[in-house]
């Protein structure tokens, strides 16, 4: 899962202090493993350097947790590109897709559409794999079948999540 983009996405909802940002993140995504403060600050600093964020104020006491960050137009573009670019099937796809979905719901973007895009991408991969099975030797067929079943699992999750968007939205608010 891409932490930096997720943090940027959360800042796209509203400007926030570093400290509050980390807690937000943990609340939505930190189920298994909460994010370390150091990682958060390093990521935020890098994104300021890249021009996606600006610091807009500091509270007395001066550490990074007391700094206020705000997203820039460049940052917003980066988020949109991230959300609406489908991922290649991989191990980390699900957590990525989950993050994108949550961010889209929070920012009132079309979560259903991004899921559709991902689905179409998956189908394309499946088509390619299926075509590849034609005339392949049995060992390769087994390999392709394995990949196909994984992609299918993703697709089933996508279908289910698509059907649950309304419920998710209600709970996130």
């Amino acid at each position, binding site marked *: 899962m891409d932490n930096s983009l997720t943090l940027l996405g959360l800042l796209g909802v509203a400007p926030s202090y570093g400290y509050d940002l980390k807690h937000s993140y943990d609340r939505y995504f930190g189920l298994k493993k909460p994010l370390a403060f150091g990682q958060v600050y390093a990521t935020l600093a890098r994104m300021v350097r890249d021009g996606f964020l600006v610091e807009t104020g500091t509270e007395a006491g001066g550490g990074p947790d007391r700094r206020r960050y705000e997203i820039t137009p460049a940052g917003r573009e980066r988020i949109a590109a991230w959300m609406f670019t489908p991922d290649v099937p991989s191990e980390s796809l699900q957590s990525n897709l989950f993050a994108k979905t949550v961010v889209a719901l929070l920012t009132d973007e079309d979560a259903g559409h991004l899921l559709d895009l991902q*689905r179409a991408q998956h189908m394309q991969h499946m*088509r*390619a794999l299926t075509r590849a099975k034609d005339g392949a030797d049995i060992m390769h067929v087994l390999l392709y079948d394995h990949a196909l079943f994984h992609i299918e699992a993703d697709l089933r999750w996508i279908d289910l999540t698509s059907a649950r968007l309304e419920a998710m939205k209600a709970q996130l608010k």
Partner: protein
Amino acid sequence: MDRPHQRPPRSHESPTQVIPVLSARTLHKRFGLTHALRGAELDIMAGEIVAIMGPSGSGKSTLLHCLAGVIAPDEGRILLSGSDIGTLGEAARSRLRLTRFGFVFQFGQLLPELTALDNASLPLLLAGKGRREARREAAAWLDRLGIGEQAGKRPAQLSGGQAQRVAIARALAMHPEVLFADEPTGALDSLSAETTMTLMRDQVRAAGTTLVLITHDPRTAAYADREVIIRDGRVSVDTRAVAA
């Protein structure tokens, strides 16, 4: 309605025919209070394999039935190679289904009283061919699909996969332009499903037949060139084929 002379096999990459073989425009269909199709639109090119997917109740079966001339829409047009078939009478639509379409449905829809061979030869007999010739052609199809030895068995004595192959043989016996399959792998296990789909795909590719396929199973849909997603009686996603 005479069907055109049999076409040479086409590659799936770039259909060169300009007019779609099947076209649906603003289709509406109601069953009592249920509004099954609400302005569905679709184009299918000759030789394509199209998968129609969607949640249950989305109207995909209704769309297929309209395209296949099984039922007539309340509003909208269905064009087969440019001619409107939505307004045809019952007898004309029956003729259409017999000579230009083929059907493979989830449960085969075979006649339980007849043998595999007789089932496969039914369309030929309906069209007026003599019994001997019909049986000969049907037997050839059964062989082509690898179930020549089951010719004398009745559907109850066949496995699901074998029964589906008989259905495919029957569907292809009249060299249709379009083959319609509604959840053809729905009742099959993974291997039978794969065998069935491979067979269907190979056969339609070889003959240049268009295949319109309804399925909720992604691995089955993966045999298609493109998928179309239906939601609430409308086509919501329609991806054109991307060359491999």
